[in-house]
């Protein structure tokens, strides 16, 4: 008679410890992302309530938001989801340089988006204290911008890790998590663009 060994893959065994642990990380990260989406949901619903009940929504002297240039940067950001997917594709085939190239390209596209955001902020004639509209606009775009920045930093971390030898036996989980985060940030931006620029 023997005491039964852990047959469930969920129970970590000494030899499979590293892989099993990375697996938990992905589960944990997905749970975190679901939770994080509620914060945006809260901001979106607050924005909608304030906008629908406002007597005067836009600050005096402001006609509306210019949407053409932001649309251009939106296209850049959304297509970076595609380049991230391409990078993952290369990684799954073991072509590290292809992964690194497209990964870096995605980071650059995120940076271009942030640059566009900064330019837009500087050109606007209203500030964060210009009524509810100004408050919402800067809070929503700023909070999303912080997420883009975090995404770029996460990608930089993964890029650096890809140079560690033999890392990608168990290291792919981090890449999957980062790319999930990036897609999440993109989807949020599309919703945000519709709410801020298209809905007027």
């Amino acid at each position, binding site marked *: 008679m023997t005491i039964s060994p852990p047959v469930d893959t969920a*129970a970590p065994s000494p030899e499979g410890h590293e892989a099993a642990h990375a697996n938990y990380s992905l589960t944990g990260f997905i749970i975190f992302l679901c*939770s994080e989406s509620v*914060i945006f949901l*809260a901001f979106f619903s607050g924005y909608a309530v304030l906008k629908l009940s406002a007597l005067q929504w836009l600050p005096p002297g402001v006609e509306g938001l210019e949407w053409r240039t932001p649309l251009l940067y939106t296209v850049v950001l959304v297509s970076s989801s595609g380049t991230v997917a391409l990078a993952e594709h290369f990684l799954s085939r073991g072509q590290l340089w292809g992964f690194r190239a497209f990964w870096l390209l995605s980071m650059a596209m995120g940076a271009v988006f942030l640059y566009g955001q900064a330019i837009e902020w500087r050109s606007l004639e209203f500030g964060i*204290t210009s009524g509810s509209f100004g408050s919402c606009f800067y809070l929503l775009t700023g909070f999303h911008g912080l997420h883009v920045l975090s995404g770029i930093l996460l990608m930089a971390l993964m890029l650096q890790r890809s140079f560690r030898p033999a890392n990608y036996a168990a290291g792919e989980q981090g890449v999957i998590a980062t790319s999930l985060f990036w897609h999440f940030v993109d989807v949020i931006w599309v919703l945000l663009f519709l709410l801020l620029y298209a809905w007027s």
Partner: protein
Amino acid sequence: MTSTAGVESRILRAPHPVPGAPDNWKRFFSFNTDAKVIGIQYIATALFFLLVGGLLAMIMRGELITPEADLVDRTVYNGLYTMHGTIMLFLFIFPVLNGLNNLLIPCMIGAPDMAFPKLNAAAFWLVPVFGVILMASFLVPGGPASSGWWSYPPVSLQNPLGHLINGEALWILAVALSGISSIMGAVNFVTTILRMRAPGMTLTRMPIFCWTAFSAQTIQLIGLPALTGGAVMLLFDLVVGTSFYRPEGGGDPVLYQHFFWFYSHPAVYVIILPVFGVFSELFPVYARKPLFGYPFVAGASLVIVGLSLIVWVHHMFPSGVPQWMRDAFMVTTMLIAVPTGIKVFAWLATLWGGKLRLNTAMLFALGGLFNFVFAGVTGIMLATVPVDIHVNNTYFVVGHFHYVIYGAATMGVYAAIYHWFPKFTGHMYYEGLGKLHFLLTFIGTNLNFFPMHPLGLMGMPRRVSSYDPEFAFWNVIASLGAFLLGVSIIPFLLNLVSSWVRGAKAPANPWNAIGLEWLLPSPPPAENFEEHVPTVISGPYGYGTGRPLVEHQEEIERALLQA
């Protein structure tokens, strides 16, 4: 036999800490990643803040023993009730429950530790950090936050002295840090329960405590971000001068109430669900009967999660919300009584005809259940729009939620602490002191919080330091009850400390309970079962059925006895 060798070698080894960590009392003051150390850190920190919050409560009751505002200044009184509520919720009840989660979840499901031990330790160490921030607000010019624990604008946006660092800003910061800590904890608990169960422990074989902890932590994950979002906007309004809630800039103060209650009502279920779990664990042990209706008790927890997210407007019936909203939320709120009622009847059916063993843990569980039923009745009254509008912002509301949070939740926490004390300290507690603690607590609770109901119905508003002399009679009784509750803490702490230091050695399973945690030595070694996780072969609570819980149960029990 090679079979038991593994078990014995594991059990005979003295409990050892995580490699590299101190193995004496100092480990409780270090960044230790062992869930059992973190659990005790949480509980000890929470009990400290229970004393702080309790002291504030007794100052308030001292003020209210006479109708005049004579003991403290009125502005000080405003700070007292704000800080009492905030401390008790964010620094006592949430941390103490996270402590129980840390101790119980890995042991109950047979996991060596939590899924993310470092994240777990970081989540704990945030608690003293925001505790200090909140305490520091007593020292800043203008005093601590004074707008009540819910910090409604526009009251909370007043900053008469104009300082950047004021009580309200520190309050928001502390609550935000508490939220981050809770989210870190919730991600950890949910991942652990989903991914790290022992072989053979399917979801339908999981102890009810794990079901309720899972449900409660799911609420944290959905609800807390909404409060955090709302609090960020409040902080911007207060510090930067934005207009999310400032009416003069087009903001909407009621919007904050939506954000606040979208989390803070479900937060009550975050508190009470694990206590339901404690009741479900304790009644079968001390009645020697299987839990009645296991699938319904487990499923009811998930139903409560769903319903808890669509009831928040019942806190806002008088806040100028449309009538259709009042009607809809009155119905959803009343619906909560259905899953809760299922649980209460399941417990009663478990107790019915059982061979009851009335030790301290069981007494606290029974007392908690009694108080919970009382709170449930007043809860249904408050869900009714006309009654709620009549008693809104009176002592009736205060009485109701203190019955929930002290009468049911805190007494349930006491029950859990006594029940699992031998398991995690390796020492038995003193029954006599425990029963004295129960007696004082039960009498004190009812003496303190029952009079608040007639006071509320008579129309005494909450959050006032002086009142009409016609309310004096009930207030004197309530104050005496509060002081009795203060006294009741003394035998409790005395018992905890002296039992841990010199209490009788606890066997592995002092209550003859069924569960994976009782198949571990007392106290369990750092990694629990390590790689020798037993295979679960039947559902929990098999009392009186003779079914073994795990494979080779007899060998494991024999080895534990020999150890």
